[in-house]
């Protein structure tokens, strides 16, 4: 048995690698720049009047903290023309412009020179300081306008790749510089940039784009996400991130909180509803399924089959909405509150346990019904089918033959063996607890994991999504293993030793 479990756990590894990779690929290709969001979140949270350099510093700080300054994966397939350090350019527009230039011209050294010339030009423009006579002649505002325009021009240059556009902008800038004396200082820089650009055009090596090249990166974003930024095995020396395998799930882009804290906070409600509903579903469906099987083709069997089948085919969101309409409708029948899990005023701190239950209960009933019903139909059908199979076995006939009452046969002999397939359903508790039910929690506004996931998806909060995704995968696997072990315990005929 121990050997079997170990083997199963070893088999987890490839599955989990694939699942985490899939989650990672999705998050990497997702739109939106997390950094600008995290930084703007700080700005609004108090420190007003943050200037540009401050924003930049803040961005850099979060970039290192989130590991976004690293290459994406262990290897990348590029062309000979592209350098293996392109990931170090953070600005998305600049990066795609550079990639474009590489595709069109294929000579990275010259393109890099052009890129750095543009950086210098930008710096030079920032450093322009017109003297007083010039200010008198041109006016302070006009000068500021010109400088702004130049900056925009440089920006367009570094995110542009079309030949005509670049040449036109360069030409315009040169004319400007020739006319306005206070631009004397940057004249040289503009000319340098232009020379660099011409060098790109003169030394094309397009053929490099057709030679594949693989770059390897030992330390990258995926590695950091899984293993942290310290030693991958021991975790020693890690600063910002200990890695998924050590329970560090990183930060949420939306709230900047640790994802593990969010999960811990949100999980309890999903867990609560999952456990309660599964318990109730078992309580209701087992007797129904057994009775239906015991009296096959009776009126009870047929009606319960039809009713359960109908339940099974109803969309959950519809049932939940109908429940709300029926029982939480302020315009007709308002027995239960329509949303949330506690009164708006909150629960008084000095309330004792009974008081808390009294206050909360009305909020919990409708969601519990909705949660339970979705399990109910499925469970009863499984119970019926497996009980039918058991009833036709010889040992049941034997039990009947030796004179046991119907009830005794049913609950003592049939029931036990019926339990087996039901274990499978129980193994779903684990993954459900962490992923919750997106639909039900959204409809009833329950602050559980499902709602959190929905919110994360809407706000592109990818760390939350990929962590929940991977964790659900882990827990599903654990659930299956758990179920298999339970099978072996419940049924001595099942054995996982090697002599099968």
């Amino acid at each position: 048995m121990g050997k079997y479990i170990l083997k199963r756990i070893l088999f987890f590894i490839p599955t989990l690698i694939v699942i985490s990779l899939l989650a990672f690929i999705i998050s990497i290709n997702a739109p939106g720049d997390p950094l600008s969001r995290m930084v703007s979140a700080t700005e609004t949270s108090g420190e007003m009047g943050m200037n540009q350099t401050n924003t930049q510093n803040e961005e850099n700080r979060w970039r290192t903290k989130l590991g976004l300054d690293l290459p994406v994966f262990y290897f990348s397939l590029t062309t000979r023309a592209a350098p293996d350090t392109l990931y170090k350019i953070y600005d998305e527009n600049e990066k795609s412009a550079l990639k474009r230039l590489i595709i069109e011209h294929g000579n990275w050294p010259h393109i890099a020179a052009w890129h750095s010339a543009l950086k210098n030009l930008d710096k030079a423009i920032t450093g322009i300081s017109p003297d007083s006579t010039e200010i008198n002649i041109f006016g302070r505002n006009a000068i500021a306008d010109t400088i702004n325009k130049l900056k925009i021009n440089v920006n367009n240059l570094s995110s542009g790749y079309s030949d005509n556009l670049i040449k036109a902008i360069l030409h315009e800038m040169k004319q400007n510089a020739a006319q306005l004396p206070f631009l004397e200082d940057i004249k040289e820089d503009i000319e340098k940039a232009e020379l660099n650009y011409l060098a790109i055009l003169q030394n094309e090596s397009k053929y490099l784009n057709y030679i594949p090249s693989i770059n390897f990166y030992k330390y990258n974003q995926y590695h950091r996400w899984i293993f942290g930024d310290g030693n991958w095995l021991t975790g020693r020396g890690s600063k910002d991130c200990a890695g998924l395998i050590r329970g560090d799930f990183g930060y949420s882009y939306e709230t900047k909180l640790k994802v593990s804290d969010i999960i811990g906070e949100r999980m309890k409600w999903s867990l609560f509803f999952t456990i309660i509903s599964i318990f109730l579903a078992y309580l209701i469906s087992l007797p129904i399924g057994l009775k239906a099987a015991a009296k096959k083709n009776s009126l009870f069997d047929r009606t319960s089959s039809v009713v359960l089948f109908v339940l099974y085919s109803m969309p959950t969101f519809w049932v939940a909405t109908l429940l709300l309409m029926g029982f939480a409708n302020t315009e007709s029948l308002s027995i239960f509150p329509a949303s949330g899990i506690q009164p708006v005023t909150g629960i008084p701190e000095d309330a004792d346990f009974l008081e808390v239950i009294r206050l909360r209960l009305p909020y919990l009933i409708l969601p519990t019904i909705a949660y339970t019903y979705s399990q109910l139909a499925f469970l009863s059908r499984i119970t019926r089918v497996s009980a039918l199979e058991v009833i036709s076995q010889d040992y049941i006939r034997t039990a009947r033959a030796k004179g046991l009452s119907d009830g005794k046969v049913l609950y003592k002999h049939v029931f036990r063996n019926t339990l087996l397939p039901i274990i499978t359903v129980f193994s779903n508790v684990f993954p459900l607890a962490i992923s919750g039910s997106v639909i039900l929690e959204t409809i009833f506004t329950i602050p559980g994991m499902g709602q959190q996931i929905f919110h994360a998806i809407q706000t592109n909060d990818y760390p939350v999504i990929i962590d929940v995704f991977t964790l659900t995968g882990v827990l599903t696997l654990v659930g299956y293993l758990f179920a298999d072990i339970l099978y072996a315990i419940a049924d001595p005929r099942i054995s996982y030793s090697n002599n099968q």
Partner: protein
Amino acid sequence: MKKNNTQNEFSFRAHARKQFRHNKPAYISVYILIFLAIIAILAPLLANQKPLYIKYEGQRYFPAFSFKNNYVITKSDGSIENIQLDIADWKQMDHEKVIWAPVPYSPGKTDMLNTGYKGPGDAQLFKDKNGEIIEMPRRFRHILGTGSLGDDLMAGLIHGARISLTIGFISMTIAAIIGLLLGAIAGYFGDNRLVTTRGKFWAVVIGIFVGWFYAFQTRSYILQDAINASGFNLLFQLFLSLLIFVVIIIIFILLGKLVGKLPILNKRMFIPADTLISRTIEIFYAMPTFILILTIAAIARPSITNLMVIIGLTSWTGIARLTRAEFLRIRNLEYIQAARSLGLSELNIIVKHALPNGMAPALVSIAFGIASAILIESSLSFLGIGVPSDLVTWGSLVSDGRDKFSAWWLVLFPGLAIFITVTVYNLIGEGLRDALDPKQKK
């Protein structure tokens, strides 16, 4: 004698068909499904604000069938009227003769006079030819009421059927193609029947790599530009990429045949097809599919096509699993052995002999799969993810009703529509399962 013989001959297919016919709910379901499909196909004729036929200013038009955007009409007094087909107020036109669609409204189109949830029994208003606002004439009543924007619910239901059925059908077609193919390969070849040489294997692996590089990587910007330009160009560029990919792989396969004759590289190699595919299926089982679909749908541009592809790509596992099991059984049957010993190619055996017999279990899974695809789509459009916001689907109608609980019709009718469709598919699936189950032979 001969007659007797044919009577004794047992045809499983005929038996299954008979069994299915005996299953009343399943049999009735098929008819309901056909009915739904007819509604879906005829949707633009059943619910349309444009008249099917109109005689206006002495000329005959068929606006509902027209592909034009506008009619330019020269009136009798010489003035010119430009009628935009989709926004014209057809109901106020001074027409000589007109034939309306059974439901004279289009889905999602605002009816200014009946906004804000008008129920089926509520008083509804109508603007007549003279521009006077009167009580709704019976012919133009919103039979099932309206939504928040005054959009006709019945029209939404009819057009929603189109979307739901298409999603179910196309996504399961994608899933069935993948599932049948992989399941057949896994079951038929097992772990030790797919034999190749070392040289050929590595040639193909390198070929895929090289093909990917030249077909997609070096052309990435061309493809990206095509995506932004969209339409025909994208299809053409994608086709070109695929062509390059296939050509390179074929070259490498041929190369592999040559290389496979060299020493060392000519060693035989078994490809563990079954293990690989079974593992992949297990991985899919461990994945929270709904969250995956939700996430991808949120990232991708909202469109029905994307949804169909996403659902299709994530729901093939059941089909593959059942097909695999069936092929494991079939591959040892005599007729397959016979075909093999006759020297037929493996592809030929799989497609012509094994697949027709091994598809039955997959059919059950496909029927259930369509039901769950429809459920997934309606859940997604209920949540407002992945479906264009201006598209009216059954799920989005329910979602509209969620904002106002007294608008019971908006929740009840679309929900019923989803429920009936899903039930019909589930019943057909059940019926197929019972009919195809050899244990139930009587």
